[in-house]
């Protein structure tokens, strides 16, 4: 039997970056906010303690802090004709669980998407002609522009203390920064991180090729910092335990280091952890949300009424909650209609590994999740696509994020995987191998989408989300072209031998690739092709807003979190300035 709780103004589903920022800002405005999170509470002092945090087996391999597939997983197939099977062990991506969400165990690479990324369809049509876009694509403009988002990128970067070098300050190109970036209203809050020997070689080699190297923007911050919420961070020590780990140094921006200490002090705020939201409740006409139903750790179900429902779970789980709750028309692949589950996208990874001579000491263990030197010359539409014949691009970066040896054991190509020859090989190359990687965009296609699985269910009997995804020919062409560019740079850096890493096809769930899962509840200007309006408000149920990368109409050649943060502040601004004053649809159709 479901028990009904006293009503709140706002219920937040999921307490990661987006949920904690919205909770803080709305509680500060005087609203009663309850955040419901299915995983445990986590805090630096107890859970990322320096005496337990740097443990590769526990956190990096057994994945203690991630969502466990036994709790929830997704089923997967490459094409719509295939039978989907559950991802029994997460590999290619690692969804989060618990307070802090993916913002707790991320690497911290914090980008702004480029101005052209937000208007990609109209931009390509204008520059190259409408016929240039790939077959089967559903590429869309976002419905929001870079200029509109700039103040909100700024807000997120100052919340998180991001370390970087501005490349474009109010329209003026700055030496040492990314000359392709959109104009910034002010510099990064903290200066760039230190770079290692490999990054120095990369900067020289890429500049020698006429490219424009700059330090990658980092949420592992270079110096002590106090953010606008009054929360203090400490400088990064380059320990090499970022992604998959909590930071024991208070150096990696996360909800824990940037928001939660201020949030819990807000009198109108309450968090309920180890409580899983089962669905958003609607009025009988389906047009208004009345709150959520969740289940606690004893199996008791509770109804939490609220005036405003903010879905702040990881991208997949926002989409699944919409589908399970009957909010928005589900995407029907056969008919090419419907919006919830439409335009799922991901990220490409390709590049080149270089093997250097004796006397090289790259010291890969001295690293942070987002140090690195990057070039953006081949990203988005920063170069002429007319001759290359593909859409999209990639950020190209030389970086170590870590040298943790269960997972990082480089050997020369052709070395056996075991035995004395392997021992010699890994001893020789651990300190002499380095990589240059291209993180590329993935466009949206009719055949890449999310829906509910007909066979596999979770512990509560609810269908799992089903993913249908493969890298399409456009992405394969782009990523492999980028791998060749990476290889040219690695050779120019002085590598004795290189190995090109092409895009793996078909996409496989097995090797880790990236947790940049985007789309499925995309924002836009047309309710026939987007689940959300430009303020991340559901077209169908106006008191439901959906945060996160599930709103991306397609993915750009960058990590998503910077844009997720910007969209959160953008949506928050609309909620505060427009919605709360006159609840209802913010965009009329």
């Amino acid at each position: 039997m479901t028990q009904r709780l006293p009503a709140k103004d706002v219920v937040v589903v999921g307490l990661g970056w987006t949920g904690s920022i919205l909770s803080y800002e709305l509680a500060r405005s005087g609203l009663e906010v309850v955040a419901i999170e299915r995983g445990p509470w986590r805090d630096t002092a107890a859970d990322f303690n320096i005496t337990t945090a740097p443990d590769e087996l526990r956190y990096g391999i057994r994945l203690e802090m991630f969502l466990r597939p036994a709790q929830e997983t997704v089923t997967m197939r490459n094409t719509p004709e295939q039978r989907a099977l559950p991802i029994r062990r997460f590999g290619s991506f690692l969804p989060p669980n618990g307070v802090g969400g993916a913002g707790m165990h991320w690497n911290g690479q914090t980008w702004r998407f480029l101005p052209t990324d937000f208007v990609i369809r109209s931009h390509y049509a204008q520059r190259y002609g409408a016929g240039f876009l790939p077959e089967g694509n559903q590429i869309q403009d976002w419905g929001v522009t870079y200029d509109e988002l700039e103040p909100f990128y700024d807000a997120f970067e100052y919340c998180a203390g991001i370390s970087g070098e501005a490349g474009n300050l109010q329209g003026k190109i700055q030496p040492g920064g990314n000359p392709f970036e959109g104009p910034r209203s002010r510099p990064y809050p903290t200066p760039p991180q230190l770079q290692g020997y490999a990054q120095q070689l990369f900067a020289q080699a890429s500049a020698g090729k006429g490219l424009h190297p700059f330090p990658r923007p980092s949420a592992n911050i270079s110096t002590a910092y106090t953010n606008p919420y009054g929360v203090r961070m400490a400088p990064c020590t380059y320990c090499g335990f970022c992604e998959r780990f909590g930071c024991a140094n208070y150096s990696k921006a996360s909800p824990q280091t940037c928001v939660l200490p201020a949030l819990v002090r807000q009198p109108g705020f309450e968090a309920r952890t180890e409580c899983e939201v089962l669905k958003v409740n609607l009025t009988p006409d389906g047009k208004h949300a009345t709150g959520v139903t969740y289940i606690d750790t004893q199996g008791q179900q509770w109804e939490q009424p609220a005036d405003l429902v903010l879905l702040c779970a990881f991208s997949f789980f926002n989409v699944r909650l919409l589908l399970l709750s009957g909010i928005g028309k589900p995407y029907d692949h056969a008919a090419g209609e419907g919006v919830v589950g439409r335009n799922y996208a991901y990220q490409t990874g390709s590049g080149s590994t270089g093997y250097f001579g004796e006397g090289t000491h790259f010291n890969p263990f001295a690293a942070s999740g987002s140090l690195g030197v990057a070039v953006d010359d081949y990203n988005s539409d920063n170069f002429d696509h007319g001759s290359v014949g593909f859409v999209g691009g990639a950020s190209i970066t030389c970086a170590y994020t870590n040298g943790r040896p269960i997972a990082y054991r480089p050997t020369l190509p052709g070395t056996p995987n075991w035995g004395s020859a392997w021992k010699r090989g890994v001893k020789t190359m651990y300190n002499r191998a380095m990589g240059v990687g291209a993180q590329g965009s993935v466009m949206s296609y009719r055949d890449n989408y999310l829906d509910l699985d007909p066979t596999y269910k979770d512990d509560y009997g609810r269908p799992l989300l089903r993913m249908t995804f493969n890298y399409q020919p456009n992405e394969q062409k782009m990523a492999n072209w980028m791998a060749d560019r990476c290889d040219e740079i690695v050779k120019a850096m002085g590598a004795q031998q290189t190995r090109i890493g092409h895009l793996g096809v078909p996409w496989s769930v097995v090797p880790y690739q990236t947790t940049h899962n985007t789309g499925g509840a995309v924002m836009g200007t047309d309710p026939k092709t987007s689940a959300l309006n430009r303020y991340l408000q559901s077209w169908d149920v106006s008191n439901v807003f959906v945060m996160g990368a599930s709103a991306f109409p397609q993915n750009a050649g960058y990590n998503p979190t910077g844009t997720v943060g910007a969209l959160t502040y953008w949506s928050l601004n609309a909620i505060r300035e427009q919605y709360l004053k006159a609840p209802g649809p913010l965009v009329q159709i």
Partner: protein
Amino acid sequence: MTISTRRQLLASAAIIVFSRAAFGHTILGKLPWRPNEVYPPEPLGSPGWHFFTPGEAATVDAMVDRFIPADELGPGGKQAGCTVFIDRQLSGPYGTYEWLYMKGPFPADPLPSQGLQSPLTPRQQYRLGLAALNAYCRGKYDNRAFAQLDADAQDKLLDGMEKGEVQLPEFSARMLFGTVLANTMEGFFADPIYGGNRDMAGWKLIGFPGTRYDYRDVMQNPNKPYSLPPVGLKGRVSADRSPT
């Protein structure tokens, strides 16, 4: 309830009773942690094998010593504690895949891109797989078990298993090979607190300094050799040397 058990429960959807709230766990007004509240990994526990039979342990000892032979570069897998490591991993939550999605159906013909689709837990893989390997050896090598073969014969057999050229009776040779090799490498390079990487042999081989957690000096001195010895979660010492 011990601390570590509590943490395992907290991170899963398991059923727990909280005294502070009638449902779930409520956080109000202040951060819910106490100073010095940490959650260390499970200790290695009592000496002796926790999962393996003596015969299984001898087989795994032989395998880990071919995967990582003792040679002029340093200790082999057995001396480095890889078998102890695997034994303790199998007796813990890893051994049952309790964190994974193990609901059926398990179709026989998954796509390679769909990854793990076997209902066999690691405990079952070792129990059935090692028995199959030894049955194969006894049939082919004059009634000798894997551990009784000479190193060359062991290497040839492992090579054939890796390449899919050897068929074991009623068990996938590739699955057994892949599981044991992966677990051996985990044991050789994981923190010594888990029973492997004894005397930090794995870390010393490649020059990984372990859990020093502060390399600002390295960043300020690029392309210089790193000379400090490795440290683990327990400092410069290895875990206790149970059970062998």
